[in-house]
């Protein structure tokens, strides 16, 4: 049953995948509840330009992707804070710039092969290197530590920005920090599920956990658990059925979302029928 874990590259992939699976929904929860679910998608497209820039400049692509997404996140947050009515417009402009820049830099680099491009777009968990694992571990620890230390401030900002501001919380700085953490999460996640699907790992497990109707901490816990379960089962399934790992992981997360949605609907129906009987 666990023979897939005998292989060293699979062990590396699982270690990196579990780290990413833990980080993605932690940031995703704040984004979803602030109605910024699509920011992960936008940053994924900017990361594409970053990876292409890495091939063009011969710098490690994860590093250039990190630089591009952090700059993109700062730009999106800057535009969003100044044009409240057109928050999605800021996202769209960066989204298309990322794609266009990525296509141009890919062509200019000359060394960015179709197979490599496919790997970055859709993930290549089984080709994760030891350097990737260490980089993901380092950045993951930083992100989780920041969220743990600023948990109540981030929660206050997410629940009610005006009241958070009144209570002396530095809302502007926290918004920037959250955008930067989203950028870091997208960059570390792209090696596992790909640029086009990394946002799914930030959003779908959170959507599944929200169906359970629990408190904030409990929702955070369930989001991370659903994400990790999707990762492990998706990775193993992809190995045995010879399926693309990124797509399989995301589809299993979507499956968990459907299951929790059905569970929620069933519980609500039972509660309604119980209430009718007691009348």
């Amino acid at each position: 049953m666990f023979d897939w874990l005998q292989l060293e590259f699979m062990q590396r992939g699982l270690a990196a995948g579990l780290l990413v699976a833990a980080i993605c929904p932690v940031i995703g929860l704040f984004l979803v509840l602030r109605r910024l679910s699509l920011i992960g998608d936008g940053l994924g497209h900017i990361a594409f330009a970053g990876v292409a820039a890495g091939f063009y400049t011969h710098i490690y692509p994860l590093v250039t992707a990190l630089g591009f997404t952090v700059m993109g996140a700062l730009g999106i947050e800057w535009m969003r804070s100044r044009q409240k009515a057109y928050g999605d417009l800021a996202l769209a402009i960066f989204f298309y710039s990322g794609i266009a820049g990525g296509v141009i830099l890919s062509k200019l680099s000359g060394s960015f092969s179709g197979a490599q491009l496919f790997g970055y777009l859709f993930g290549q968990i089984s080709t994760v290197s030891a350097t990737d694992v260490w980089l993901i571990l380092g950045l993951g620890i930083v992100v989780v530590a920041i969220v743990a230390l600023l948990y109540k401030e981030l929660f206050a900002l997410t629940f009610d920005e005006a009241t958070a501001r009144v209570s002396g919380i530095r809302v502007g700085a926290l918004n920037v920090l959250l955008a930067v953490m989203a950028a870091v999460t997208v960059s570390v996640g792209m090696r596992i599920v790909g640029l086009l699907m990394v946002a799914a790992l930030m959003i779908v497990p959170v959507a599944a956990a929200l169906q359970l109707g629990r408190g904030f901490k409990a929702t955070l816990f369930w989001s991370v658990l659903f994400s990790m379960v999707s990762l492990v089962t998706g990775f193993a399934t992809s190995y045995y059925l010879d399926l693309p790992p990124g797509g399989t992981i995301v589809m299993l997360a979507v499956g968990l979302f459907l299951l929790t949605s059905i569970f929620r609907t069933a519980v609500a129906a039972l509660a309604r029928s119980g209430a009718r009987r007691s009348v």
Partner: protein
Amino acid sequence: MREMPENRVNKVNSVARAEPVLGVENVSFAYEDGAMVLDNLTLQIAAGEFVALVGPNGAGKSTLLKIMLGLLRPQQGRVFLFGQDQRRFKDWWRIGYVPQKLEQSNPHFPATVEEIVMLGRAAKIGVFRWPRQEDRVAVSRALELAGIENLRYRMIGLLSGGQQQRVNIARALAAEPDLLMLDEPTAGVDAESQARFYGLLHNLNKELGVALVFVSHDIGPLRHMLDTVACIDRSLCYYGPPEGFIDAPSHFAVATANSAIGMGSRA
């Protein structure tokens, strides 16, 4: 003017002697379209004072509240909080804010009442720190004061408007503030919840000595609890005891302009 009851006279005198918790000095404010909303307004609120901020629609009450809370910067003038210039003020936990209604409009927001009330203590706990036993005790006390201990583990989005408003006040009380600012907190709340809410404010002010700034269209039910009425219409048009305000037809006329304001019975 009618004579004030003795206990009220004592309170007014003690309020007059108390040091100000909030000072607004020559504040003017205009929005981007250039329309002047506040014009050279000066106002002071003492420790333990219960002030109603009234005025016609568009008179600048909510704008003034936002300026007092630091959400808007006036083009002219200064605001002092507990004797310090607002721009240098750090102890924001000393000020509680109760908005008109819960700002979070998502009915499925995943948070329990206890978690939301704990947010009110965030500034007092401090950055990079986690809640300790004393914070949990303060949250329990705030829930008890607001009369919602039984709702502690309920999801916030599933509560009625009146219950959510009590959560708002519990959140504001969790940090044990010295000054509570309330922005039309009873709008859209049923009469029974309103009466309970006013009773709660009375206890906070009388027993805990919390200074209250209450922005409202209808101060009728509050008039026996108030120390001061501040009537705003771009600038301060009345500042004094509620009895004087009710008995002065001109002030009453200003405050009832636009027909949205009532003072209850004028008995």
